[in-house]
């Protein structure tokens, strides 16, 4: 088992993804070290969301390999050929990866608490009482202890997103994917969500892969920024470095437009 301290949490090896004729990713290589908080930035339509969706198995790569903790996740090379890994094995890796969506995607037929305990009970087999206790701790952590039994539809967007974060954390993921988690929120609700994420970054060692157009968020939470364009990583650096003195011309152009 290649589970040494230097094994990256996430590795993309020559990953290709097309939608019809639209080549979104072409031989993409990159890796994320365990415990890193990496922000992906880049122009709209460049494929940032696609990268997260591939990691969540919501999309299927056409080429290349995706490794988690050094182990093949969706495909592997067997007998010199690239073959899909069966659902059962994917599932074991997938449960260590969590995702928070732009549109929250809470289950409206369940209460806040039920949303959070659903997967721990039915995926991990955690006893109900234990799952409830964990969920209550998490609700406390995201500042929504009093919403335990509320319907999700009664919550504001910011509250829903904090529940969604708690729901993802309840699975105790090693990797957390965050796709534009504040872009569907009214500006005054963004701060609470960011505070929760900053707290997670400070108090856990979860590997985070973040897509955001909020450069302030990238600055506060992440320790590495990947500039993504034309299906490739064109620059990577510490946030301070990339935001103050980007080297690549495309990065400079992009940051001038968004900052």
């Amino acid at each position, binding site marked *: 088992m290649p589970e040494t301290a230097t094994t990256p949490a996430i590795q993309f090896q020559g990953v290709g993804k097309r939608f019809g004729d639209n080549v979104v990713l072409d031989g993409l290589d990159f890796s994320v070290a365990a415990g890193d908080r990496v922000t992906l930035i880049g122009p709209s339509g460049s494929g940032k969301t696609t990268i997260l969706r591939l990691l969540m198995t919501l999309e299927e790569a056409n080429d290349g390999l995706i490794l988690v903790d050094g182990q093949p996740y969706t495909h592997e090379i067997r007998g010199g050929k690239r073959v899909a890994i069966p659902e059962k094995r994917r599932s074991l890796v997938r449960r260590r990866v969590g995702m928070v969506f732009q549109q929250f995607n809470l289950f409206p*037929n369940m209460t806040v608490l039920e949303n959070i305990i659903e997967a721990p009970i039915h995926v991990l087999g955690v006893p109900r009482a234990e799952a409830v206790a964990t969920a209550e701790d998490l609700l406390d952590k995201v500042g929504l202890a009093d919403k335990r039994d509320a319907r999700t539809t009664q919550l504001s967007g910011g509250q829903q997103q904090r529940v969604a974060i708690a729901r*993802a954390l309840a699975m105790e993921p090693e990797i957390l994917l965050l796709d534009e988690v504040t872009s569907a929120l009214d500006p005054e609700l963004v701060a609470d969500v960011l505070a929760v994420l900053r707290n997670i970054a400070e108090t856990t060692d979860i590997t985070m892969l973040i897509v955001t157009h909020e450069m302030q968020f990238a600055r506060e939470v992440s320790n590495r920024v990947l500039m993504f364009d034309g299906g490739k990583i064109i620059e990577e650096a510490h946030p301070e470095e990339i935001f103050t003195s980007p080297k690549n011309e495309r990065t400079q152009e992009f940051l001038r437009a968004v900052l």
Partner: protein
Amino acid sequence: MTETEAWSWDHAAAVLPALVDGLWITVLATVVGMVIAAVLGLFVAVVRRSGLRVVTVPVAVLVEFVRSTPLLVQLVFANLVFTQFPSLAIGCVVLGVHYATYMSEVYRAGIDAVPRGQWEAAVALDLPRRRTWTAVVLPQAIRNTLPGLGNYAISMFKETPFLFAIGVVEMYTAAQQYGGNNFRYIEAITMVGLLFLLVSYPTSLLVRRLENRLA
């Protein structure tokens, strides 16, 4: 009871007990038929979404077959083939199977109306397929299908007179029998219509209220 009157209240009153007995059979057939339609329709809808051609194709053919032939013909045919079963049971099952094909479309629409994000959240939580259906998708889909279920129940209720063709003494058959025995049809048939109205109309109001509440 003179035979020259256009309308006789005596006949209208005399037929009523038989009609009320028939009404119970009518309601029974509708309730049992609807339970079959609701369960079988859901099964068909979920199977058709599975994408497994070995099951979706035969199911699609069966659905098309049931939908393309008249209910009346199906009733008579089933009654001729399954002589060992009571006609009422056959009637309930045929009504149920017939309406299951329509209910499956209602469920299908309800399932399609569940946002993709719900499926994706279930994947992100690694929920097993079965749990995704039973805990996430179906509870939301079925909520959307309740008005459709109500409307088809009313529609089935109004089609129960076809059971006349297989000799089930529901309300309409009871009226026909009274008419035949007394040579007076108009009161019996009018009363049947009134009783249908008395049940259907309040039910449709209820369904509409449900529609508005869910909208």
